[in-house]
């Protein structure tokens, strides 16, 4: 699609940046169907991530040796990171253990699907497609509300939206704010944060690629062609940054999940 867009650009009014549509390859099943009509690369990657995570951690935990092998050590470190530094520290000693599997799944599901974006040829963070981010944030949204209701009954909603110890005139302003921030904005920010960072990173790599192509291949001036090196350096730097962001976003997404669960379990607003 880049190849289609760029010649048009050169004949017309210079460089036209790629659009988000160009992020999508045609679907795989049925082969080369339009994006969105069948099973696409992104869905295959999501399913692959399930297989990778399940396979890796099952293998790492299989022997259950007291003195761990390297593989088991890596598995334990991954599990321990989520269990202790996210689960135990945020949710607290009393309740954290039953949420560890959820946090663990969320973290590695997001992490592996993000890291896809940094692997050459795969190069597609699954959460750069909004549907994946929406559904994951949605599951967690439903989950923490359920936890809250099960813990506090239907009064949980009052607990969330009515801050204690506030004079009643302020409540007129505060209650709508709390409703919006907790029940409307929270799931949106939770999903969009992940989706937007992945999408942006993906787009930047694409942009750098097409910029290099434009300067190097489609220009005749040798000096203009040489400037493509600058784009390459910048593109690689952005790639590195994006790789960092992929890990950080997986951590942040899981951390927020833990914070929402903790908020639902907490006694006071």
């Amino acid at each position: 699609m880049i190849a289609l867009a760029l010649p048009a650009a050169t004949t017309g009014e210079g460089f036209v940046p790629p659009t988000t549509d160009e992020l999508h390859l045609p679907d795989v099943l049925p082969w080369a169907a339009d994006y969105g009509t069948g099973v696409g690369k992104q869905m295959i990657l999501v399913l692959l991530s399930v297989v990778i995570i399940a396979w890796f951690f099952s293998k790492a935990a299989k022997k259950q040796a007291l003195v761990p092998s390297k593989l088991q050590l890596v598995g334990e470190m991954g599990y321990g990171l989520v269990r202790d530094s996210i689960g135990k520290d945020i949710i607290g000693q009393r309740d954290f253990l039953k949420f560890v599997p959820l946090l663990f799944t969320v973290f590695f599901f997001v992490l592996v699907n993000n890291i896809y974006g940094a692997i050459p040829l795969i190069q597609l963070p699954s959460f750069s497609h909004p549907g994946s981010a929406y559904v994951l944030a949605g599951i967690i949204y439903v989950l923490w509300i359920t936890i809250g209701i099960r813990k506090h009954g239907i009064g949980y909603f009052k607990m969330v939206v009515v801050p204690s110890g506030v004079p009643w005139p302020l409540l007129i302003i505060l209650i709508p704010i709390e409703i919006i921030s907790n029940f409307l904005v929270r799931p949106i920010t939770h999903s969009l944060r992940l989706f937007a960072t992945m999408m942006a990173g993906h787009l930047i790599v694409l942009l750098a690629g097409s910029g290099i192509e434009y300067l190097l291949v489609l220009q005749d001036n040798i000096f203009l062609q040489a400037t493509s090196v600058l784009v390459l350096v910048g593109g690689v730097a952005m790639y590195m940054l994006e790789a960092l962001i992929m890990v950080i976003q997986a951590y942040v997404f899981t951390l927020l999940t833990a914070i929402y669960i903790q908020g639902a379990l907490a006694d006071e607003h």
Partner: protein
Amino acid sequence: MDQIVILAAEGNPLLPNPWEILVTGAGFAVLLYIVIKYVAPAFEKIYTQRVEAIEGGLAKAETAQAEANAALEEYKQQLVDSRAEANRIREEARAEGAQILADLKEQAAAESARITAQAHVQIEAERQAATVALRAEVGTLAADLASRIVGESLADNALSSRVVDRFLADLEASDSAGATT
């Protein structure tokens, strides 16, 4: 420009692909099931086992330490005992040695006394013999000498022996008189 507007309208990046929602949701659910069912229990089991192993190991180490201390005490006690035993044996040996030495000394003294007495007896006997022999010989010599000087044979044994005896008695008397004076 028309094309760009159409692209933007079609490609609203916030609109999800429903199939992706379905696949991601299903994938997440499957993974969550696997983690809840197998992965998390396995890792928790490893943790529990390790905690038990470490705590058990600590207890075992404490027992071993206590045993080692007891053994050390016992060893020290044995050392003290054996030192006392050694001292006792040494003392006994010393006493026994002294006893043996004393016995030997006594034996040696007795032996030497016996030898001395025997020597005395022998010397006395020899002196007696020598005295007797001398007495006889001196008598003969003196008689010979006298006969030679007097010119008269004093062959008569009885006479000569009387003379000699008288002479010797005189001699002894003068000797003892000399000794007393």
